[in-house]
């Protein structure tokens, strides 16, 4: 592999890993804080992508669509938590799996009723559609760098919020001991509601950002969901930093797997997961 190809693939791996982190971080937070396994998390990614598609047709601007989409997905998350997820906290995992599985069916069919089952493409903003030439034949699209940039900024802001603010302190307290945090006067119900809505918005934002690159198609939610599960399993449940590391590992493994072993590309990520499970059953940053 020549250095330029290596650079391009590394940037692709980084971008893919960061995007996965964006989606998976919401999932791991909801696991960690609320103890809820949410199969419908991939649907939020799918909904985000379709929001980008419909809203950019409506508003005529990609960024307008993203801004509106984030607001809508936060509201959607708040409503969903209030109506359904808040009833799941004291139920066992099986009920959670079942209810969120039912939600996937509902969301997919509503999507099919609203926009059909066709594959759509979403136009990226003009000033991001250029490519940076690297050699005579190879270049790298600016939009992918932009995606990575957004994800890095978001990851850093999450770090600041979680580690350096009062809100973050409460979130961490809720993760490590829910009852104790409640006993100390933290309104866990409200905290849960906003963390959940935040996770929904992150997944939807991931879908919106990915829409111009990956196009918008019906099965995109479950594809991402399973990869997010792998991220959470490798990183350790509830650990945001574990999720970041795991997402990057998967991004690079998948990208280079496709280049080096094209026939077995789909498998590489799962082989990685199996190896890490053998080594650390609770994930890299998980508490055993």
């Amino acid at each position: 592999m020549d250095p330029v190809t290596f650079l391009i693939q590394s940037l692709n791996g980084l971008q893919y890993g960061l995007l996965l982190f964006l989606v998976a971080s919401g999932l791991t937070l909801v696991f960690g804080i609320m103890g809820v396994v949410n199969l419908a998390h991939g649907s939020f990614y799918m909904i985000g992508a379709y929001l980008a598609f419909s809203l950019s047709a409506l508003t005529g601007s990609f960024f307008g669509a993203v801004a509106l989409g984030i607001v809508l997905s936060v509201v959607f998350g708040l409503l969903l938590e209030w109506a359904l997820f808040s009833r799941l906290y004291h139920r066992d995992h099986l009920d959670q799996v079942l209810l969120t599985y039912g939600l996937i069916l509902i969301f997919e069919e509503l999507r099919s009723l609203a926009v059909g089952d066709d594959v759509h493409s979403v136009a990226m903003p003009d000033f991001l559609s250029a490519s940076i030439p690297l050699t005579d034949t190879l270049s790298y699209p600016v939009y992918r760098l932009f995606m990575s940039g957004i994800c890095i900024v978001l990851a850093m802001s999450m770090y600041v919020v979680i580690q350096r603010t009062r809100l973050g302190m409460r979130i961490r307290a809720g993760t490590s001991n829910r009852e104790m945090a409640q006993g100390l006067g933290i309104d866990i119900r409200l905290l849960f509601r906003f963390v959940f809505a935040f996770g929904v918005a992150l997944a939807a934002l991931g879908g919106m950002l990915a829409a111009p690159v990956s196009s918008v198609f019906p099965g995109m939610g479950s594809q991402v969901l399973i990869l997010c599960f792998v991220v959470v399993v490798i990183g350790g449940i509830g650990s945001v930093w574990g999720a970041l590391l795991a997402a990057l590992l998967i991004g690079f493994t998948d990208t280079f797997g496709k280049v080096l072993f094209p026939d077995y590309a789909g498998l590489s990520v799962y082989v990685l997961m199996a190896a890490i499970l053998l080594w650390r059953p609770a994930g890299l940053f998980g508490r055993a």
Partner: protein
Amino acid sequence: MKHSPPWLLLGLAALALAAFPLLGQAFYVELLAKVMIFAIFAMSLQLLAGVAGLVSLGHAAWFGIAAYTLVLMAPKYHPANLWITLPAAVLAAAAAAFVVGLLVLRTRGIYFIMVTLAFAQMFYFVFHDTGLGGGSDGVYLNFKPEARIAGHLLFDLGNSTHFFYVSLGAMAAVFLLLAAIRRSPFGHALDGMRANEQRMRALGFPVMRYQLAAFTLAGGLAGLAGYLAACQFGFVNPELLAWHESGNVLLMVILGGLGQLHGAILGAFAFALLQEGFASVTRHWQLPMGVVIVALVLFLPGGLASIAARLRRPRS
């Protein structure tokens, strides 16, 4: 929890099923055979989820592996021999479950759900991406297997009446086998591990070995269902291993009631009934199905098998 199944009702139901092909409704004979295959599949997961307390969201992997084993072993121009292909398919599924079980049984709870899902997805990609089984298009099974004894044809799975009775027999056999297992010391040990794993370990039970045995057995029985499904559909493709299949079979188990063996059969029938019913009304049958699932979780936490108990309980 009540362990002994309602034998009288089940016997009557089995007799009614056995008499059904006499009515000559070819479409419903095939549909019922399909539902019975899914009942076997659901019972195999019941052993895992309901008895051993291991909720797997990757159970379709074993179903699909056995289906592929049959199709890949089957000769191109004449029917396969059931006595060879059936044990091979079940063993292949059980062997794969054994190897994966060694890994996934290191995890618990949410982890177990996610890891089983991820491994099933890995097998999905094995058949989807590699040239092993025709990629995403799958492979056709040209001739259905047949069973001969000393050259004499015993039954032919290409004949839908034969197939119906073989499926019914297989369902009854799996039910009796699992009912016997529940009553055996092995079954009681699994019950104990579901209730309190630490205590069973403290009592000296090799928990991992028991769970691995249950996981392997459940994989093999799911393989039996997959073998029959491949016979009935006449082709296999990676979608047999897709996680929607794992979700649907888990749904059947929970719909019928977790922990009750006959609940799995009830759940498979209820699922098929709902699916056929909704599909006859709308192309978007998954929408009402999803609503039913959500409502079920919110309002009927014990599954269908709990309705009888709820009705029996006097209202205060």
